[in-house]
């Protein structure tokens, strides 16, 4: 079985994201970029499934500009086998991503697609679900445990009420929760090896997928800064302030 894992290059989670002065987007120049954190869990899970002898090849797919190769290399250094980069502008919307993934599935025929549950930059949380619909495959979103037995997988999902266990048939698509596993570090020798692993580069046009945006961005702005807290002397003053200043009661 092949496993297809999608990874997205995003602004590193440690970076304090800054909105551009003209409100057209966020500052990305010389900002540290790295792999979307839940995607790391997806890569790790694929490696564990392969190490358990239940898969024989792990393919990493990323969509975006040339530099996404670095993100693919990170996954290859963790242990994945080869990469595919579909070149497109760096803000491809979820529907277009789903269409590209479906196209890649046509040629690669994986038995399992693993994705992060959402990307930390746009927080859309749509790609896994839409890809499942486009392919007509079962979906198991927010996976925190994946057990594969033959042609059936039991997936534990993180839901509001607690944990839900579902059974899905292979092939299926899973979106991974941060609790799924702890991603491994890439070792230096593996980073060296990863440099020699193949990455196939295509453009979205070649796949015949229209990636033009369907959403119009009106403006990107920073959230309002939080007001300073005040100490109140007693409950009466608190009630007073809540009622007349904050006007919430």
């Amino acid at each position, binding site marked *: 079985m092949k496993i297809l894992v999608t990874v997205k290059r995003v602004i590193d989670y*440690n970076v304090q994201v800054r909105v551009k002065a003209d409100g057209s987007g966020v500052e990305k120049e010389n900002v*540290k970029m790295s792999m979307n954190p839940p995607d790391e869990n997806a890569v790790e899970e694929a490696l564990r499934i392969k190490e358990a002898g239940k898969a024989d090849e792990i393919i990493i797919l990323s969509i975006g500009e040339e530099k996404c190769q670095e993100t693919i290399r990170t996954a290859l250094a963790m242990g994945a086998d080869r990469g595919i980069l579909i070149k497109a502008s760096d803000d491809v919307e979820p529907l277009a991503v789903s269409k590209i993934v479906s196209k890649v599935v046509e040629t690669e025929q994986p038995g399992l697609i693993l994705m992060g549950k959402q990307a930390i930059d746009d927080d859309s949380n749509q790609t896994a679900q839409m890809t499942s619909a486009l392919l007509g495959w079962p979906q198991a979103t927010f996976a925190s445990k994946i057990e594969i037995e033959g042609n059936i997988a039991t997936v534990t999902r993180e839901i509001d009420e607690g944990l839900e266990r579902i059974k899905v048939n292979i092939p299926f698509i899973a979106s991974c929760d941060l609790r799924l596993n*702890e*991603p491994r570090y890439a*070792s*230096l020798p593996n980073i060296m090896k990863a440099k020699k692993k193949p990455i196939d580069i295509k453009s979205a046009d070649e796949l015949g997928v229209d990636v033009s945006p369907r959403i119009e961005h009106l403006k990107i702005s920073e959230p309002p800064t939080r007001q300073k807290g005040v100490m109140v002397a007693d409950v009466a003053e608190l009630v007073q302030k809540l009622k007349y200043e904050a006007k919430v009661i």
Partner: protein
Amino acid sequence: MEIQRESMEYDVVIVGAGPAGLATSIKLKQINPDLNVCILEKGSEVGAHILSGNVFETRALDELIPDWKEKGAPIKTKVKREKFLFLGKKTSLSWPTWLLPSVQKNHKNYIISLANLCRWLAEQAEGLGVEIFPGFAASKIIYDEDEKIIGVQTGDMGIDKEGNKKDSFEPGLNIMAKVTVFSEGCRGHLGKEVIKKYKLDNNKSPQQYGIGFKEIWEIPEDQHDEGLVMHTAGWPLDNSTYGGSFCYHAEKNQVFIGYVIGLDYQNPYLSPYDEFQQFKTHPAISKILKNGKRISYGARALIEGGFQSLPKMYMPGALLIGCDAGTLNMPKIKGSHTAMKSGMIAAEVINENLTNKAALSEYEIKFKNSWVYKELYKARNVKPSFQWSLIPAIIFTGIDQIVFRGYLPFTLKHPHSDHESLIPAHKAKKIKYPKYDGKLTFDKTSSVYLTGTNHESDQPVHLKLKDPDLPIKYTLNEYDEPAQRYCPAGVYEVDRTDQNNPKFVINAQNCIHCKTCDIKEPSQNINWVVPEGAGGPNYANM
């Protein structure tokens, strides 16, 4: 149980991807493309731990990559105008630039981000086949039985707070090399080890350090003057404390504003961070920053000792270069070009060593014949003259630098190490700093937030106390525990929740790798060791 480690072999391993290390690697590959060269970098990417003013003198780069302009080096903003101000509490006196010593003239230089220059240099190096490994810290030196350095070990990853292996444990690697180059920057933790082990600083003045702060501000266009370089001395520091500010108008309506304070300050109540914050409220400065937005913050210790503190830079199997040794030119307030040149000389010596078995001690001779040596020699008497306080020092510096051009027939010494300079708290005057206004001045927490600093939380504390009881038992009484104030990131706190039983708290996760604690702790009780790779700040355009 002994951990099984894999090893990798290189001709040359370089510790630290700063200007010195990158220049070494580039020069090595230029003169001998067959050499296998790798660079280990503890930051999450090249540039993540680089912080510098920076007004850049291109001399070394001109020699290394003469066509840097065509190759798109991020060196764009030429210095157009210069100002030097003496600040009083509310006043400012402009010093005529023709009266500045020539080392402080910048008309041929550029205002740059050194972090971005390093990113570009890293691309050039990789283009030549240098292997750069960001996120991998060199944590230990490997010696052979004859005490010769034969490589370095990268840090183990995935060790928990108590020192146990986690699931993600990944053992460090032995990187074996014919020659090891230490280019960690000021007060590198391995550099410190080799200086001590091989007594490289024998017969030298004790090294002198400063702490430098930098903020990047985006300011309204009409307050911005691209290409203007301004320095100040005076307020808020008193006349016995060495320091001053810089304010560089870069491209895109940004100003790089910063402050450097000599770590030989005496009053344990002095807080370098607060001096810098307060400095921004001076009318001559606040008018530049008002209605602007602070977008970056950072701090880093720097070398001030210069010529008389420069240790021997070679040892068996290794070289010590850049500010890991201490090649910064203090009166010039520049170290990038000298660091790069020290690396380029290293590359020549290493190549001779590998191909013709020439001794690494050749470094001393080549260094002495270079322009770096001359620069440092001429600059040597400026910093030590400040032990006589500001006014006599300025007069002396005028005579030394303008009349004698640095060739006075004697060399002043640095009297003591920076950790020896504090006076006991009961003899010192308490300093009350104004409250932060959230517009020009900010608290440490919101500043550290801007550095993008992170460390894996479940790992051993990388700020090691030789005696864990000393801070409360001794340093708190004697010096009111100055770590609370000299740390620019709020790593050290004295928790007085229990009045009778204060506790010394180390928030190691906040550490921005400036090394000030390792330098200034009066009993040298804090040892800065390298945390898990990729930890620390994530500076963008510093």
